[in-house]
Every structure is written in structure tokens, then in C-alpha cells.
């Protein structure tokens, strides 16, 4: 049951599309940074523990 958007279909669909894309971009970038920093931190922590202990 898609709603009939009438003559404004482009405006509505493009708004939703652009917003979802932008939100996905910031969420994706944040997740990617999180994964990268976490991995690097784990690596450095493991290395230092190995040397200290």
C-alpha cells in the first residue's frame, strides 16, 4: 500500500532518500572510526602487555 504522492513524488522521495543517505553516512563513518580506533588500541595494548609482562 504505497501512498499516492501525486505530482510531488520527486520532492518527497528525494527528501527521504537524501536524508537516509546522509544519516547512513554519518552513522557509517562513526562506526568505521570506532572499529578502526578499537582495533589499533587492542593491537597497541597487546603489544605493550607482551613487552611489559
Amino acid at each position, binding site marked *: 500500500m504505497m501512498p499516492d504522492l501525486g505530482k510531488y513524488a520527486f520532492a518527497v522521495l528525494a527528501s*527521504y532518500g537524501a536524508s537516509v543517505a546522509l544519516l547512513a553516512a554519518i552513522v557509517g563513518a562513526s*562506526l568505521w572510526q*570506532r572499529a578502526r580506533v578499537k582495533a589499533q588500541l587492542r593491537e597497541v595494548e597487546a603489544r605493550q602487555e607482551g613487552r611489559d609482562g
Partner: protein
Amino acid sequence: MSIWEYANPKKFMASTGWLLPWVWGMAGLCLLVGLIWGYFFTPDDFRQGSTVKIIYLHVPSAMMAINAWVMMLVASLIWLIRRHHVSALAAKAAAPVGLTFTVIALVTGALWGQPMWGTWWAWDPRLTSFLILTLFYLGYIALWQAVENPDTAADLTAVLCLVGSVFALLSRYAVLFWNQGLHQGASLSLDKEENVADVFWFPLLVCIAGFVLLFVALVLMRTRTEIRARRLQALIARERLA
């Protein structure tokens, strides 16, 4: 127990660690419910037709674009006054999120304006203010990236945030003075809620809650990443010394 205990990075990491999945869940739920409700189950406006569905994105993102800056201002003040590192990092983490919301508000506004006003872009006071807000966000983010020493960067960006807030406010009124504009203030703004019919109002409320929660979730997650990055830098520095 004082709220400042959460300014301790360790405590912050521990308490947000279990909070974060819940905030993400609630944000996703609210956004899903609000947007599906708004998109599929609301009638068309008799004047604006189906473009009324855009307000479920436009109004919450515009609100959060401004609120994100206010949050950065408060966090900057806390950093300048009480020197809690988490606060400075939270301000840093919030800037790209606020920028994203600002861009969403501008894009949805342009897409809505094209059929309604007959033009993608009008130098309407609100649109212009948001464009200026975008520039403030860009400058703030650029300054964070340009300064190498993290504490110096935190201090400088905090000062910029304070001064920028004053000038952003001045710009807002200067722009109003310059062009009275064609934005429909009343029908979309929240303090005049009687102008929005209930059918549109309730899904809009859910969407606003969703955007607020999404902002909180993103800022918490990005702040945690920043804290980890600081720890990573400290460990690497120690490694070089050893």
C-alpha cells in the same frame, strides 16, 4: 554522587557502555515508527499535497542542527571552566553530527521549496541562517583538525564556539533585518503547535524524539571513540619513550 563523576573517562566509558545499545535501540525504534507512520499513514495536506511528509525529516533535523550547536556551546563552557576532557571530546564528537543535521535540513528544505515556492533556493532568512550555521560548523571542525596538540585544539575550538555563538545569533537577526522572507514560521514551528493538525503532530513528535535519541547515540559513540583515540595516542607516546 555528583554528575561530575561522569566526567571521569573511565566512569564515562563504563556507564555509557551499557547505556549505548539502549539509546541506539530507542532511536531506531522511534525513527522507524515515526517515519513509517508519517510516510504511509498520514493524509495529504490540502494545500501542500504530499510534500507535507517532508516535515518529518525537515523539522527534527533543523531543531537538532541548532540544538547540537547549543550542546557544543555548553560542553565548551564546561571544558573551559572545569577542564573535563570528556566534555571537550563530546563537543568535538557532536560537530560532524550537527553538520549532517544542518545539511539534511537544507536539502529537505530545498526539495520542499522547489514545488512550493517554485525555486530550489531562496535567500529566505531561515535558509540563509542555516547556510551560515553550516559555515560555522565547517570552521569549527576545520580548526579541530588543524591544531595538532589536543588540549590546545580543545581550548581554541571552545573559544571559537563561544565567539561563534554570539556571531551566529547576530547573523540570525541581521539576516531577518535584511529580508523578511517567505518561510511559513507558524505552521512548522513548535511553539505554535495549534497550527499543525493532530494527524501530522503526533508522528512528528515521534520523529523528533527519534532524532534526539539518534543525536545522543551518535555523540556518545563518537565521544567513546575520541576517548579511545586519546588513550591510543598516550600509549603510543609511552611506547616511543620506552
